[in-house]
C-alpha cells in the first residue's frame, strides 16, 4: 500500500487555520499526522474537508488511545481520507483525564456519530455536542471503560437487572395528524431477518416508520482488549471472528498491517495465494449477503444456488488452512503453510463452477418484476450522503462513488490485475444487489489472472524475527530452536509507533490502526469495521419506509454482527 507521499508537499500550514503552530509530521505509513488542540479541532476538520487542495471527504474512523503515563492521558485519533486527491491524514487531539471532553465532529462529518459513541464507551471521553452520546457496544449497566489501560482484562460484570434500552421518544405517546396513536415496535434482536443479534426500535404510523434507533453490541467481546493481552501473531485467530463470512480477508488485512509496521514483505507466492483466497472469500461473502437478502424478500431458491459454490469454496479453504469458517491461514510474514498439491486444479474447477450459479440467480432475479418492485427506490442514499456517513465498499459504489481500495491504494499487487470496479448510480437496494453480482464476476477474473501468475517458492518470510523457522530445522538445529523459543515466548517485536492500514474487505474499507510500544504485545489495535459506518445510517434510512422495506434494506447493507460489535 503506497500511500500518497504528496501529504508533506502540501503547504499544510498555510491551508489549516492557525497552521503556523500546529504539530505536523509524517508517520511511517505515509499519512500526515496533525496534532491539534481540542479548541481548534473543528476548524481544522472543516478546513480538511472544504479546502479544494485537501478535500478529505471520508472520515474513516475515530478512536481513542490511552497513554496513562502522559500528561494528557487520552488521545482521540481521526482518520481522514480524500478520495479525490488520494491522500490520508490523521488528526490527533490529546486530552487530560480529568477534563476528557472533545467537541463532537458530528457537525462536520456525520460518520463520527457511532465512532464517537464507541470512543466514549471504551475510554470515557465525552464528545460535546454529540446528539446521542451514550454507550454503544457495552450495556448501560457496565461499569468503567474497558479499553483504558487500568481496566483489568479479566474483569466481568454480571447483568442482574434485565433492563432494556428504551429510547426516550419511544416512551412518549404521540398521535399523528389524524389523531391515531402511533405504535412502537421492536425489530430483533433475535430474528432471522436481522442476520445476527441487532435490535431496532421503530415508531410506526400505520405501517410507515417515522423514527428508528438501533441497539447493537450483543456480540461484543472486546476483541481489541483481548489483543492487548496476547502477542501480535496471536491476534490472527481473533480477526477470523470479525467478518466471519470472509474470515480470510480479515487475517490478510491484519497481517499486511503488521508487515508494514515491521517493514517485511510476504514472499510473492504467499501474496498471490492471499489474493486468490481473498477474492474467493469476497465471492462467498457476497453469496451470503445476496442469498440472505433474497430469502428475506421471499426468493428462497437463490439461497440454495448461492450456497452451493460457497460450500465448494469452504472445501478449498479447509484443504488449505484446516478450518472452514475460521481459517487462521494468514500469518504475519506470509501464510501458515503452503497450499495443497491440487490447489490449482481445485481453483480452476471453482472458476468454471461458480459462474453457473451466479448466472442462474441472475436469470431468476435481476429482471424479475416482483424483485424490482420490492427493491427499486427502497433505501436510496446519494453518493455525497453515503460518503458523509463514512460508507465504503459495495454499498458506496452502488451510490455512484467508484471508491475501491484495491484501485485507489493498491496492495498485494492489485494494480497489476485487470478488473473493473462495478458502479451503479441509483443508490437503492436494487443497485446494491447489482453491484455485488458484478463484483463476484470481477473477483473471479482476478482469481483467474492470479492463478496464471502463481509463482513457486516459499510462502513465509525467512526473517526469523517474524516467522517461525521451518519445523525440520527446529527439530534438528540449535539456532533454529532458539529462534523458535524466542518468537514464542517474546513474540514479534514491532518497532514503536503507529500506523493505519486498510484493505478492501467484502463490506468496504477494513482498516487496522495499530499502535506499538516496541514490546511483544500490541499496545492498541483498533479495527475500522466497514459495516459499522454503514449501519449507523440505517435508522435514518428507515424513516418513511414500511416495516417490510426495513428488512430489505438491512439485508442489502450486509451487516455482520461479528464485525459490527467486535
Amino acid at each position: 500500500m503506497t500511500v500518497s507521499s504528496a501529504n508533506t508537499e502540501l503547504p499544510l500550514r498555510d491551508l489549516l487555520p492557525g497552521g503556523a503552530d500546529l504539530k505536523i509530521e509524517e508517520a511511517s505509513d505515509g499519512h500526515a499526522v496533525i496534532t491539534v488542540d481540542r479548541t481548534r479541532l473543528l476548524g481544522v476538520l472543516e478546513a480538511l474537508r472544504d479546502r479544494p487542495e485537501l478535500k478529505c471527504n471520508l472520515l474513516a474512523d475515530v478512536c481513542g488511545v490511552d497513554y496513562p503515563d502522559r500528561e494528557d492521558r487520552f488521545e482521540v485519533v481521526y482518520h481522514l481520507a480524500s478520495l479525490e486527491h488520494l491522500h490520508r491524514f490523521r488528526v490527533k487531539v490529546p486530552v487530560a483525564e480529568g477534563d476528557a471532553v472533545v467537541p463532537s465532529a458530528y457537525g462536520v462529518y456525520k460518520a463520527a456519530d457511532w465512532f464517537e459513541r464507541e470512543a466514549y464507551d471504551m475510554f470515557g471521553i465525552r464528545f460535546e455536542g454529540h446528539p446521542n452520546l451514550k454507550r454503544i457496544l457495552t450495556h448501560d449497566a457496565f461499569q468503567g471503560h474497558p479499553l483504558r489501560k487500568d481496566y483489568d482484562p479479566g474483569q466481568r460484570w454480571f447483568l442482574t437487572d434485565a433492563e432494556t434500552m428504551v429510547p426516550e421518544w419511544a416512551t412518549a405517546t404521540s398521535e399523528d395528524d389524524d389523531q391515531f396513536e402511533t405504535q412502537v415496535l421492536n425489530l430483533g434482536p433475535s430474528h432471522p431477518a436481522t442476520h445476527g443479534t441487532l435490535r431496532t426500535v421503530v415508531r410506526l404510523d400505520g405501517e410507515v416508520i417515522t423514527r428508528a434507533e438501533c441497539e447493537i453490541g450483543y456480540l461484543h467481546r472486546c476483541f481489541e482488549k483481548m489483543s492487548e493481552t496476547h502477542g501480535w501473531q496471536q491476534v490472527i485467530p481473533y480477526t477470523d471472528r470479525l467478518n466471519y463470512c470472509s474470515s480470510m480477508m480479515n487475517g490478510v488485512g491484519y497481517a499486511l498491517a503488521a508487515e508494514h509496521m515491521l517493514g517485511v514483505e510476504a514472499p510473492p507466492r504467499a501474496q498471490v495465494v492471499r489474493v486468490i483466497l481473498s477474492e474467493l472469500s469476497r465471492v462467498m461473502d457476497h453469496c451470503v449477503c445476496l442469498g440472505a437478502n433474497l430469502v428475506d424478500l421471499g426468493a428462497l431458491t437463490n439461497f440454495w444456488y448461492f450456497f452451493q459454490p460457497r460450500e465448494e469454496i469452504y472445501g478449498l479453504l479447509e484443504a488449505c488452512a484446516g478450518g472452514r469458517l475460521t481459517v487462521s491461514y494468514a500469518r504475519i510474514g506470509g501464510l501458515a503453510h503452503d497450499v495443497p498439491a491440487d490447489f490449482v486444479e481445485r481453483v480452476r474447477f471453482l472458476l468454471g463452477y461458480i459462474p453457473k450459479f451466479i448466472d442462474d440467480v441472475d436469470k431468476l432475479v435481476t429482471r424479475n418484476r416482483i424483485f424490482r418492485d420490492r427493491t427499486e427506490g427502497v433505501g436510496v442514499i446519494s453518493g455525497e450522503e453515503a460518503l458523509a456517513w463514512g460508507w465504503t465498499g459495495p454499498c458506496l459504489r452502488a451510490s455512484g462513488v467508484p471508491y475501491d481500495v484495491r484501485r485507489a491504494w493498491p496492495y498485494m499487487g492489485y494494480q497489476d490485475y485487470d478488473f473493473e470496479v462495478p458502479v451503479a448510480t441509483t443508490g437503492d437496494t436494487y443497485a446494491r444487489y447489482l453491484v455485488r453480482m458484478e463484483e463476484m464476476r470481477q473477483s473471479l477474473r482476478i482469481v483467474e489472472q492470479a492463478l496464471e501468475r502463481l509463482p513457486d517458492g516459499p510462502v513465509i518470510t525467512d526473517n526469523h524475527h517474524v516467522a517461525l523457522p521451518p519445523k525440520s530445522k527446529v527439530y534438528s538445529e540449535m539456532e533454529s530452536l532458539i529462534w523458535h523459543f524466542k518468537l514464542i515466548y517474546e513474540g514479534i517485536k514491532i518497532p514503536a509507533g503507529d500506523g493505519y492500514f486498510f484493505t478492501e474487505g467484502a463490506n468496504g474499507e477494513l482498516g487496522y490502526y495499530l499502535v506499538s510500544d516496541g514490546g511483544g504485545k500490541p499496545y492498541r489495535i483498533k479495527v475500522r469495521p466497514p459495516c459499522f459506518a454503514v449501519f449507523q445510517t440505517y435508522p435514518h434510512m428507515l424513516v418513511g419506509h414500511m416495516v417490510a422495506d426495513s428488512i430489505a434494506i438491512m439485508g442489502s447493507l450486509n451487516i455482520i454482527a461479528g464485525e459490527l460489535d467486535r
Partner: protein
Amino acid sequence: MTRNPSTVNVDQPESSLADRSHLLPIFNGLAVTLRHFLRNLFGQRDVATIQYPEVKRQYSERLRGRHILTTKDDGSLRCVACYMCETVCPADCIHIVAEEDPNATVEWEKKPLVFEIDLLRCVFCGYCVDACPKQALIMSREHEMAFTTRAEAVVGIEQLRQKGPIEEQDLGYRPYY
C-alpha cells in the same frame, strides 16, 4: 499503476414491457429451477447437501480437530512440558504442570504431570501444533465433540494420549513446513 479506477456501470435499463408483464421473467425462472430439478433427478447429480450423520463429509488431512498427545515407542509422552503451547494459545485453554521425568536420559528433563485442554475454550486455530518443538502435540480430524457438563470438556493426558500406532490415528493438522 493506475489510480483512476476503470469502472463498469451496472445500472439496469427500465423494465421492458415483457419484463413488466411478470410472465416472461417467471417462465425464465421456472426454466432455471426445472433444469436444476431434472438434472438432479435424472442426470448428473450436483447436490451440496449430504445425509449427515449417515454420510459424513471427507475432510482434508489438515482439518483442525481434537488434539492428540503423541507418544514415543515405549508409550511415554513425547511432551517435555516446555509450556510453548500454553504460551502461544490465543484462547488460553491449555494448562500444564510440569514434573521431573524420572526415566530421562538427560538431567532435569521434564514431563507433564498435568496437561489439560479446555475444549470449550479452544478455538482450534492450530497455533499449539505450530509451537510444539517436539511434535508432541498434533491434531486429529475428530470434530464431533459433545459434552454434558463443562467439566467434561476439560480433557487431560489420558483422554488426549495417542491410542495405538500413529498410522491408525485419524490424523489432521500437523506441522507442515
